[in-house]
C-alpha cells in the first residue's frame, strides 16, 4: 500500500508531481534530483551574469505588469482626470467615485451574481460529466473510449461562433432563453472537453491495485470509484474545477449571444458600457478591476495547482 499512499499524498499537494510533465517545486532545501538529471544544468553560474539576468527580469516584470496597474490607477481617477491630455500615470486625486458609479448602475450587481451562478453551475456540470467519463476512458482502455476522447479533443477545435447561434436558438426552443442555465450549458461545451482530458491524465497516474484491493474487500466498481479513486484524485478534480470556473468567468461570445437582461454576465455589461453610456472610461476600468481582482487573488493562492493544470492542459489538448 505504500505506493498508493505516496500517490495519495502527492495528489493532495501537487497533481503535477503525479502525472505529466512536472513543474519543479521549491521544496524546503531538499534537492529532489531525478534520475540522471542535474537540475543545475541550465542555471547561470557567474554572479555578474545572474545580476544582469535579474535586471532583465525586473524590467520585463515592470513592462508586463504595468498595463494592469495603469487600469487600477485609472479606476481611482476623477472622471475628468481619466481622459486628461496628456495622460498621467497616477491619479492627481484618488477617488472611489468610479466604483460607486459602476456598481451603482442598474444591472451591474445582478450581472456579478449571474457570472458567479453561471460559473458554478457550469463547473459542477463539467465535473459531474467529465469525472466518470475520464475514468471510463483511462481505466478500461476500450475502443469506444479511445474514439470518445478523440471526439472530445475535436470538440475543443470548434469555433464558438459556429455553434453559438444554433445553440442559442436551441435554448430558446427549450424555453431556456436568457437563463443562467442555458449559458452554463453553453460554457460546459467549452470546459467539458478540457476537463475530460485533464481528468484522464490524473486518472492515468492512479495504480489499478488500488481499486482491485477495494473490490476484493467487497466494494462494487462504482463504490471503489467513489470511495477509493475519487479521494486519490481530489487534487486533480480541484485543478479541473478551477479551469472550468475560469473558462466560464471570462467567456464572452456565448454570453453575448445567449443572454439579455435577466442573465447577462459582467463581461457583456463591461462591453455594453461602451455603447450605452458614451465612453465612461472611469466606470469601465473600475468594473473591470472589480471583476478581475477575485480571480487574480485566487490564482495567487492556488498557483501551483493552476500551473499543473496549465501544463497538462497544453500537452493533452
Amino acid at each position, binding site marked *: 500500500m505504500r505506493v498508493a499512499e505516496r500517490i495519495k499524498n502527492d495528489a493532495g499537494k501537487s497533481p503535477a508531481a503525479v502525472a505529466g510533465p512536472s513543474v519543479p517545486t521549491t521544496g524546503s532545501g531538499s534537492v529532489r534530483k531525478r534520475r540522471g538529471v542535474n537540475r543545475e544544468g541550465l542555471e547561470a553560474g557567474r554572479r555578474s551574469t545572474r545580476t544582469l539576468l535579474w535586471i532583465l527580469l525586473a524590467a520585463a516584470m515592470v513592462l508586463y505588469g504595468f498595463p494592469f496597474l495603469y487600469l487600477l490607477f485609472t479606476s481611482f481617477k476623477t472622471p475628468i482626470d481619466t481622459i486628461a491630455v496628456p495622460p498621467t500615470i497616477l491619479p492627481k486625486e484618488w477617488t472611489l467615485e468610479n466604483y460607486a458609479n459602476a456598481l451603482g448602475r442598474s444591472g451591474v450587481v445582478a450581472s456579478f451574481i449571474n457570472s458567479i451562478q453561471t460559473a458554478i453551475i457550469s463547473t459542477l456540470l463539467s465535473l459531474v460529466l467529465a469525472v466518470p467519463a475520464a*475514468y471510463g476512458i483511462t481505466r478500461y482502455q476500450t475502443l469506444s473510449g479511445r474514439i470518445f476522447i478523440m471526439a472530445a*479533443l475535436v470538440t475543443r*477545435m470548434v469555433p464558438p461562433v459556429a455553434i453559438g*447561434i444554433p445553440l442559442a436558438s436551441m435554448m430558446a426552443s427549450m424555453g431556456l432563453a436568457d437563463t443562467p442555465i442555458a449559458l452554463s450549458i453553453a460554457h460546459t461545451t467549452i470546459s*467539458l*472537453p478540457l476537463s475530460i482530458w485533464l481528468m484522464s491524465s490524473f486518472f492515468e497516474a492512479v495504480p489499478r491495485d488500488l481499486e482491485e484491493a477495494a473490490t476484493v474487500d467487497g466494494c462494487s466498481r462504482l463504490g471503489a470509484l467513489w470511495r477509493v479513486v475519487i479521494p486519490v484524485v481530489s487534487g486533480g478534480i480541484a485543478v479541473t474545477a478551477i479551469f472550468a470556473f475560469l473558462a466560464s468567468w471570462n467567456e464572452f461570445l456565448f454570453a453575448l449571444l445567449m443572454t439579455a437582461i435577466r442573465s447577462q454576465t459582467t463581461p457583456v455589461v463591461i462591453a455594453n458600457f461602451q455603447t450605452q453610456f458614451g465612453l465612461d472610461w472611469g466606470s469601465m476600468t473600475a468594473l473591470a478591476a472589480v471583476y478581475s481582482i477575485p480571480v487574480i487573488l485566487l*490564482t495567487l493562492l492556488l498557483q501551483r495547482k493552476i500551473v499543473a493544470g496549465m501544463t497538462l492542459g497544453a500537452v493533452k489538448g
Partner: protein
Amino acid sequence: MRISDRRFALFLMTPAALFLAVFVAFPLFRLVADSFFKISPIAGGPRDFVGLDNYFRAFASEAFTGAGWRTLGYTLIVVTLEFALGLGMALLFTTLGRSSQIWRTVFMYPLMIAPIVAGLLWKFLMIDNFGLIGTLLHQAGILSNPNQIGWLSDPNIVLYSVAIPDIWLTTSFMCLVLFAGLQNIPGDLIEAARLDGARAPALLFRIILPLLRPVIAVALVVRGIDAARAFDTILIQTNGGPQSASETMSLLIYRTMIRFGDPGLASAMGTLYLLAMLAVAFVAVSTIWRPGKDS
C-alpha cells in the same frame, strides 16, 4: 450478475457523450444544414433551399476572403510574437533557477484576466488623444507627436495593434509550457555541450530547441487554434474596423448573422471556417498527440 467491463466503461462515458452530442454535435449539424438555405432573419420567416448558393456567395465576397487572410495573419502575428517572448521568459526563469519562483507566479496573472477586460485595457492605452503609449513614446523622443501613430484608427497597422492584448494575455501560457519542457532537459547534456565549448547561441539552437521540439509543437498548435478564434479582444477594441481592417473570421460570421441578418450565408461561412479548423486540428492530432497513451 456483474456487467462486463466494457459495458461499465460505456455506462460511465454515456452522460458526457450525450451532452456533447446534444449541445455540440447537434448545433453543428444545424449549422451545416442552415448553410444550404436562404433564411429570413425574422424568426419563423421563409426558408428556401438554395443548394450551394451560400458557399458561392461566401467565396465571391471580398469580406470573406479578406477575413480569411486576416485571420491567418493575425494568428501568425500572435503566435510568433508570444512564442518569442514566452521562450525568452522561460529561458530567463530557467537560468535564474529556483529563486525566480515568485516571479513566475506573478507573471501568470494576465492569464486570469478576461479577454474582454484585456481588450478594453489596451484600447485605453492605445486610443487616440489620451492613450498613454503614444504619450510615453512622445516623451521618450521616439514620436514627434503623441498621436503620430493611429494604433487603432490606421487600417494599415490595426491588425498588429489588436493582437497586442492577445499576446499580453497568453505569453505567460507559452512561457509556462516551455518552462516545463526546459525542466525536463537533462542537465548532463548541457554540461557536456558546455565542456565541448558550446557558447550560448549554439547551446540554444543546437541543443535546447531541438530537444524542446515536441513541447514547442504542442504549444504552437494549441495557441494557434485559440488565436484563430479570437473574438472578444478585437470586438471591444475596434469592432472589426476601421474599414474592416481588423475583421477576422469570428467577427465576420458574427456580424453577418447579427448585424446583416443573413443566417444562411453566416452558416456557410461558419461551416467553411469549422472545416479549416478541423483540418488543422486533424493534422496536428495525428502527428503530435497519441491519445490514450501517456506522452
